[in-house]
């Protein structure tokens, strides 16, 4: 609460009060609890959470305030002028003692079996403030399920969450967090009095993408998760600060590891107010399990006679030396290409770039393996849009937030929560503008669903309406008017499926806002015409001056996408990066740069003979499976480095086991451009090596040396990171032509391939906990579409596109309301990308029921 008020109220409106003899001046509306916290006085509490509104449920934070007859709960009492508070008087101590005693009336003393033992707030506060013994002799209240009477009190209320209602002290933190912070309604408090219980919605389960947080904030062991359940005691583990590897925002996490077993036991949040609010998505929380997975690649594999056999590193490197050397000598380094995952750290990315550009002298590298048909030019409008500055903490400060072409709950969990917070705590207004209805809509002032493939027309519509309504500078308006198509707002409205009023609403919102955040996401980034959309965005930015009073950016999706851009990992790096690289290396290959798409094309023509993938899985993620597989099968010599056996490693001649991000120190640049370090938690498992080590080894095999030592490497990276990597938008307004793409006959339903809310990329399917949430592909439909086809939830459905066909179960979405199909790409069991065509703006499919 305090923060809310802090932002809203000017510094003039402050109050001065005295806490334990110390004077403190705080903004009006700050609670006594927070005011005390600011001068380092810790008041014990169970139910207070810095990121939630106060509720005063636990009564533990009693303080004595002069002129108030009774003890007051400090979390819900606002500081006022001249207030004299004492937090440790005799009366307060007795009050706390009594509260603890009452709390323990029905709290079972099963600490030995309780998972929270050792990090339990109730344990700690009882030690500090409670009595040694209880004066209540009667039996404790015990919740037991009727059918489980003789077994156990624990209740599984979600795929990962175990509830023990006896231990619950009713602080309502879980319920409040779920409703206030996550906007999910699947856990609640039922009944009343001493029968009050926390439970899942009747007939439902707690399976929202943030459910893990409920376990973390529970002050007692009432909510535990099966991930950590009965594995180890918390005092036996050590903590290591690290960074989430699955999200673009670089959420801060803490690894709990054990050295002797070389095992990571869990991940918890490490609240960094500038990035996250201490909330983690389940992907972050349970995704770490891939580090411990038994199915990881243990040794290098070499293909011998069509079969991959285990080999030592020396053997594998010798094979690489032989073949890569051969290709390099006979056909030249330009015949070697590489694709790296943008989730790897700076050192790995830079080593990869250096290996290709100085050893192979080739420009065939890329890090974007899951975008269709990327343009290979540097200053493409998309690259410009992606390089724009963005600040996560500014989301809260914006009064208007527009999410355009992004399904945040599937792409950027952290930003999704930030937006919710902005709405609930800072009264921001959200407009959700997407080709299909998304979850963000429930907090949006209005949700606008445009027809897929008309993204740039929506932006044009907003601009045109703004010009018409004279909401913007007239000279700019005149300039723009001559550039964008002659379609009138009415026609645009018809084409996009939105109404003119909706355009007006958006235009007015942007022009009247004091601070705007305009978030553009993956739906735009994955679109074939992303440059066109970005041109429209450039116009919009210029017309409204969005960036002068806020921010507009395409958010980068992966843990280090921004780093990859900054270090020049695309085939055509930024000019300044290129110049710097030339300076550092003293050379830079002048051969033609080729991105993923061009490389796969050249593989087919057998012009690219050697290919190295590091952590990337183009076979699964490249949006045209048949194209990718044809290309990779034609490669003479394919080296694949990954943590697991994937579709790509299956084709490889040499497979090298790669370290996970928990196994080495690495720097990652999040979507804001902030460099954060993930520390090494455990030693590399099995024989895996970090990507930068592998690059160095390959270089040494080929008689070169990437770096003399670690220091040199860090210095070189440092030099590159210093460069300003924000590209300027074009000076002029841009012309945008709209050509109507005829939809394929017989394939009426637009298809979107994206991540499952519980998965990210191709690795998380190895995490058992995440599989409990969602373990196979499905096709998500609106209720109306399902009724039209005649399928119920879970019925198998044949999904046919002009190029592929899969059969997956239908899933009826509570959110979708138009005719679109959404299929997750995270599961190896379904070849989702085989439905896609790489040169198509909107993929469309035909859905038919599978007759039994």
């Amino acid at each position: 609460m305090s923060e809310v008020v802090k932002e809203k109220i000017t510094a003039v409106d402050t109050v001065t009060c005295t806490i334990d003899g110390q004077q403190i001046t705080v903004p009006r509306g700050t609670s006594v609890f927070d005011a005390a916290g600011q001068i380092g006085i810790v008041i014990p509490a169970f139910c207070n959470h810095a990121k939630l509104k106060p509720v005063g449920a636990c009564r533990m934070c009693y303080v004595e305030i002069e002129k108030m007859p009774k003890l007051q709960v400090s979390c819900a009492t606002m500081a006022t002028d001249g207030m004299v508070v004492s937090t440790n008087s005799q009366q307060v101590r007795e009050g706390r003692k009594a509260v603890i005693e009452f709390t323990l009336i029905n709290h079972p003393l099963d600490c030995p079996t309780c998972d929270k033992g050792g990090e339990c707030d109730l344990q700690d506060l009882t030690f500090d403030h409670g009595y040694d013994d209880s004066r209540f002799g009667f039996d404790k209240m015990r919740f037991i399920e009727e059918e489980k009477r003789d077994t156990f009190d624990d209740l599984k209320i979600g795929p990962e969450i175990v509830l023990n209602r006896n231990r619950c002290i009713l602080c309502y933190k879980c319920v409040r967090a779920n409703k206030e912070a996550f906007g999910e309604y699947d856990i609640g408090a039922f009944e009343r009095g001493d029968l009050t219980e926390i439970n899942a919605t009747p007939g439902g389960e707690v399976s929202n993408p943030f459910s893990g947080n409920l376990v973390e904030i529970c002050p007692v062991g009432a909510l535990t998760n099966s991930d950590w359940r009965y594995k180890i005691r918390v005092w036996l583990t050590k903590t290591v600060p690290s960074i989430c590897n699955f999200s673009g925002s670089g959420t801060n996490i803490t690894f709990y590891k054990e050295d002797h077993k070389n095992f990571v036991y869990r991940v918890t949040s490490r609240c960094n107010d500038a990035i996250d609010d201490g909330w983690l998505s389940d992907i972050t929380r349970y995704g770490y399990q891939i580090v411990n997975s038994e199915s990881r690649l243990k040794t290098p594999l070499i293909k011998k006679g069509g079969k991959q056999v285990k080999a030592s590193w020396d053997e594998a490197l010798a094979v690489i030396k032989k073949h890569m050397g051969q290709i390099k000598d006979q056909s030249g380094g330009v015949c070697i290409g590489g694709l790296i995952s943008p989730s790897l750290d700076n050192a790995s990315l830079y080593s990869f770039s250096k290996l290709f550009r100085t050893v192979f002298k080739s420009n065939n590298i890329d890090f974007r393996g899951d975008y269709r048909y990327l343009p290979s030019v540097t200053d493409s409008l998309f690259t410009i849009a992606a390089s724009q500055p963005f600040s996560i903490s500014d989301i809260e400060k914006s009064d208007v937030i527009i999410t355009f072409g992004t399904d945040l709950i599937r792409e950027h969990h952290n930003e999704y929560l930030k937006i919710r917070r902005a709405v609930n705590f800072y009264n921001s207004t959200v407009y959700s503008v997407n080709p299909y209805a998304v979850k963000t809509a429930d907090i949006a002032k209005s949700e606008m669903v445009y027809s897929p493939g008309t993204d740039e027309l929506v932006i044009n519509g907003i601009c045109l309406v703004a010009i018409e309504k004279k909401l913007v500078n007239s000279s700019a308006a005149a300039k723009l008017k001559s550039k964008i198509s002659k379609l009138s707002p009415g026609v645009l409205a018809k084409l996009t499926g939105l109404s003119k009023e909706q355009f007006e609403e958006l235009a007015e919102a942007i022009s009247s806002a004091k601070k705007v955040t305009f978030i553009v996401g993956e739906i735009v980034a994955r679109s074939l015409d992303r440059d066109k959309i970005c041109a429209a965005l450039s116009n919009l930015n210029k017309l409204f001056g969005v960036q002068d009073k806020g921010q507009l950016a395409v958010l980068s999706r992966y843990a280090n996408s921004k780093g990859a851009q900054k270090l020049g990992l695309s085939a055509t790096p930024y000019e300044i990066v290129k110049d710097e690289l030339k300076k550092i290396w003293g050379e830079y290959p002048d051969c033609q740069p080729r991105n993923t798409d061009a490389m796969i094309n050249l593989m087919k023509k057998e012009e690219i003979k050697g290919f190295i993938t590091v952590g990337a899985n183009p076979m699964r993620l490249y949006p045209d499976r048949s194209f990718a597989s044809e290309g990779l099968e034609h490669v003479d010599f394919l080296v694949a480095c990954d943590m697991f056996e994937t579709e790509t490693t299956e084709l490889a001649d040499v497979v090298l086991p790669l370290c996970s991000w928990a196994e080495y120190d690495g720097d990652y640049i999040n979507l804001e451009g902030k460099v954060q370090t993930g520390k090494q938690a455990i030693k590399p498992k099995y024989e895996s090596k970090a990507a930068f080590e592998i690059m160095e080894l390959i270089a040494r095999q080929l008689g070169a040396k990437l770096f003399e030592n670690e220091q040199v490497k860090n210095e070189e990276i440092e030099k590159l990171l210093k460069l300003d990597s924000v590209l300027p938008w074009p000076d002029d307004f841009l012309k945008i032509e709209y050509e109507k793409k005829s939809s394929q006959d017989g394939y009426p339903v637009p298809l979107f391939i994206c991540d499952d809310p519980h998965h990210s990329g191709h690795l998380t399917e190895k995490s058992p906990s995440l599989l409990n949430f969602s373990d196979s592909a499905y096709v998500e439909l609106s209720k109306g579409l399902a009724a039209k086809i005649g399928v119920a939830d879970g019925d198998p459905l044949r999904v046919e596109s002009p190029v592929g066909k899969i059969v997956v179960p239908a899933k009826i979405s509570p959110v979708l309301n138009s005719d679109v199909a959404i299929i997750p790409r995270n599961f190896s069991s379904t070849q989702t990308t085989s439905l896609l065509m790489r040169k198509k703006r909107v993929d469309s499919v035909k859905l038919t029921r599978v007759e039994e």
Partner: protein
Amino acid sequence: MKEILTALGRIFIRMPIGMLVVLKHLFKKPVTLDYPRKKKPMAPRFMGRQYLERYDDGSERCVSCGLCAAACPADCIYMEPAENEKGERYAKVFEINLLRCIFCGFCEEACPEEAIFMGHHYEFSADNRDSFIWTKEDMLVKHPRKDNPFKTLFRRVRKVYGVGEKKG
């Protein structure tokens, strides 16, 4: 002359006294034991090798809470908890390295479940280090078993202080 007198004194006075002591002990009960065949009864609070108790129905008392391991000054207890089919916590692995154990009895003190006790067993010499690592199977008392006098003692203690009884 003096030397001769002392020598004579030794032979005729001191030596018979010494012989007398020997003679006396010949008819006394010996203080030593015929050890491997006969064993000395231990004091009730002797702290020998630990053992793990069971409930009357045969289930293990130990829930692997880790407090004994935390209390152990020699860090000789290793355990791994797990969940059984009923959803209860139990010790999947429970090992004590007796080469490290200093038999201080802190584990017994710390145990909230009355599961681990210092026993009276002290014969565990071996010729390799591995056999000094006692596992849960080695330490758990047999079930069903003959009545253990110490168990009744502990029960009495429990009765007096009213702690540790299994709840119905």
